[in-house]
């Protein structure tokens, strides 16, 4: 009877959603950033989630059905930046257009809500794990 696997899995969910929040925060903070160390405007970033099966070779059931989640990389948006007409901007090109980050505020806000909800669901899972472990411990009696 193993209740620690579920804790490990839920913890990985919390970490992954947190990382996703970090990325969303970075995107929101840099919505007007035109200069980056690599040159050019800030590019929208997205986390890539990957499922990692748990369980060693001895537990076939687990390795088929239970997976942690990991953020394996954070990719940059490959789309062209948005060109906005603003001749007075210090980074305007000769035609008066500024290359702005391709970040959609609505997309980011929805992403943030989704990450929050998923985070809370993982916290609920942890409460359930704790409750079951506690009940099992109670079997021994006072």
């Amino acid at each position, binding site marked *: 009877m193993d209740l620690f696997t579920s804790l490990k*899995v839920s913890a990985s969910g919390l970490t992954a959603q947190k990382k996703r929040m970090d990325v969303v925060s970075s995107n929101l903070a840099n919505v007007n950033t035109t200069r980056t160390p690599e040159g050019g405007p800030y590019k929208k970033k997205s986390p890539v989630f990957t499922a990692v099966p748990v369980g060693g070779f001895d537990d076939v*059931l687990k390795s088929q*059905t239970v*997976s942690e989640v990991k953020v394996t990389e954070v990719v940059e948006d490959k789309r062209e930046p948005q060109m906005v007409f603003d001749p007075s901007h210090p980074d305007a090109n000769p035609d008066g257009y500024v290359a702005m980050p391709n970040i959609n505020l609505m997309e980011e806000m929805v992403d943030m809500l989704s990450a929050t909800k998923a985070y809370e*669901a993982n916290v*609920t899972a942890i409460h359930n794990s704790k409750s*079951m472990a506690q009940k099992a411990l109670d*079997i021994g*009696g006072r």
Partner: protein
Amino acid sequence: MDISKIYGENIDIFKKVLDLRSERHNIISSNVANIDTPNYKSVDISFEEQLRSAADSDSGRGLKKTHDNHLPGGVRDIENIKPEINIDNSPSGIDGNNVDIDKEVTKMAENTIMYNAVAQLIRQEFDDLKYTIDQGGSK
């Protein structure tokens, strides 16, 4: 000695139910953790039918009765119940993920309640036993 003589007839079922429920909890936690993982499909296990038939039937009997006076023998085959894995193939979103968070959280609540109920039943068995032992010694 047959453990059920001390701990009650159904301790073998209770044990198995706790194991199965905790496996199912691991799986539901996995679904919740992977709610945003592309191409992840929701997984579940089922075991109620198998438990019921193993608990009810004579199918586990190891000994054959060839004469009416033979005593019934054999054990219920609870140990070897293998849960059935169901991979959900309901339609998924654009990223290939089909985990429904509301369904998962509800399943988890139900599973936890069932687990806690059986744990409590086991606790009760032990408490009754303890009471009996204590009372046996008192004047």
